[in-house]
């Protein structure tokens, strides 16, 4: 049948049998929504070939002119531009757009997954609303961003989408621990987890004493400036300076405290540092 219509199309196009071919006209939808049924009305009479081309669809069917061509929801799942072509003799085309449906999913990206406390502009998030067919919803929507720690609200803001995207940037909170970052739009809610960790050590202090093996030096419990315990594994560097020269020992914090055994028989000055933070100095006398 299609071959016959194609032959008719060629014959009509060349004008050989123009009298046999009825003029066709058709009207595409003024507006269509993704995943919703639509129809194209045609005029004229006789058989024709109908083509529908769009994102994700390439359909070819035989139709009878004068009726309506039904476009099934699955034909219009993807938002974008569609082209309808009716061929009988010559081919006529009309294009129309399918827009995204209402938001059904909220893609939410949050950075970073671990963040030191009390850091300005350290947390950012980006949200994109999509409809149920994964079309980007470009209509303006209000997205609510919210940071909570143990159900205690830390920060919130409502942001209108622009070009289908809403975003925020804010500082981290003051307490170490898990934080939930949520983006919500009407009934949609997308949570993300983030861990706030202690910042750099603050008021790093050490004590030391002679032992038969040398000098045992250890920090007081290491906290950041907000009072959060600095995580285990953070490296602390002890530096001993004496008549024999200088020596350093790197020790990780274990259960909040870093310890090191240093060999220095003479009078020794010991200093401490962690990252860029310097602590106090102590002087230990010579071995008796």
């Amino acid at each position, binding site marked *: 049948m299609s071959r016959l219509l*194609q032959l008719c*199309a*060629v014959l009509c196009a060349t004008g050989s049998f123009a009298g046999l071919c009825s003029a066709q006209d058709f009207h595409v939808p003024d507006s269509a929504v993704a995943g919703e049924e639509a129809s194209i009305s045609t005029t004229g009479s006789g058989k024709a*070939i109908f*083509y529908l*081309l769009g*994102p*994700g*669809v*390439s*359909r*070819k069917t035989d139709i009878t002119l004068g009726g309506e061509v039904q476009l099934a929801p699955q034909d219009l799942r*993807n*938002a*974008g*531009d569609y*082209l309808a*072509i009716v*061929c009988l003799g010559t*081919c006529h*085309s009309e*294009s129309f*757009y399918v*827009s*995204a449906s209402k938001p059904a999913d909220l893609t939410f*990206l949050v*950075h*970073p997954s671990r963040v030191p406390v009390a850091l300005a502009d350290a947390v*950012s998030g*980006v949200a*994109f609303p999509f409809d149920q067919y*994964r*079309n*980007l919803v*470009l209509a303006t929507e209000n997205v609510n961003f919210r940071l909570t720690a143990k159900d205690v609200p830390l920060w919130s803001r409502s942001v209108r989408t*622009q*070009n*289908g*995207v809403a*975003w925020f*940037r804010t500082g981290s909170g003051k307490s170490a621990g898990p934080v939930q970052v949520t983006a919500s739009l009407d009934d949609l809610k997308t949570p993300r987890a983030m861990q706030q960790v202690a910042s750099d050590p603050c008021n790093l202090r050490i004590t030391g004493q002679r032992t038969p093996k040398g000098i045992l030096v250890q920090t007081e419990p290491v906290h950041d400036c907000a009072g959060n315990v600095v995580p285990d594994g953070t490296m602390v560097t002890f530096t001993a300076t004496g008549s024999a020269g200088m020596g350093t020992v790197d020790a990780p914090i274990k259960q909040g405290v870093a310890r090191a055994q240093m060999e220095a028989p003479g009078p020794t000055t010991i200093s401490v540092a962690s990252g860029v933070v310097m602590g106090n100095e102590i002087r230990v006398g010579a071995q008796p």
Partner: protein
Amino acid sequence: MSRTVRAELPIRFVVAAIALCVLSFSPGLKLHAADSGVQVQLNTKNAGPRAVESLTERGILRDYRFAWTSMAQALESNTVDPLAGAFSGDAKQWLSQTVAGQQKSGLSRRYLDQNHQLEVVFYAPEGDVMELHDTSQYQLQIRDGNTIIHDEHVVVHYVVLMTPGADRWAIRQLQAVPQF
């Protein structure tokens, strides 16, 4: 001396001819030839909240051009292979569906004389997603078998989402809209 030159000339000619033949059938040259039909201009002045780095700008230009070259190849030859790498996620899915639909119905599309005016409208603070607006112009040909059933110069506005991969930016979303 002149005899030597005469002796070298045919050899040089043969070597040049062989090289030309090899290059003509090499994928690299084909890609370049196909690429030359896709013009892309990128405007990053309105990008925000993050400014587009010059290296990223070059990457976007290169990868967006490559993506449209790949898409044109896929929809003309009705194979999904060219889509690999250039597209991911939803864009790759609907393009694959389009190819499958065309294979079934015997249709194909050609995108000729492509020109893309690309503008970055959003670049995420951490640089992990970029939204662009593309005002593209091209000659769109639709074929049913060997018969051209539609041939039109079109201007289409696309909203594009791109994300960085290991070595390139890929198109995740390619959605035509009536206007920006």
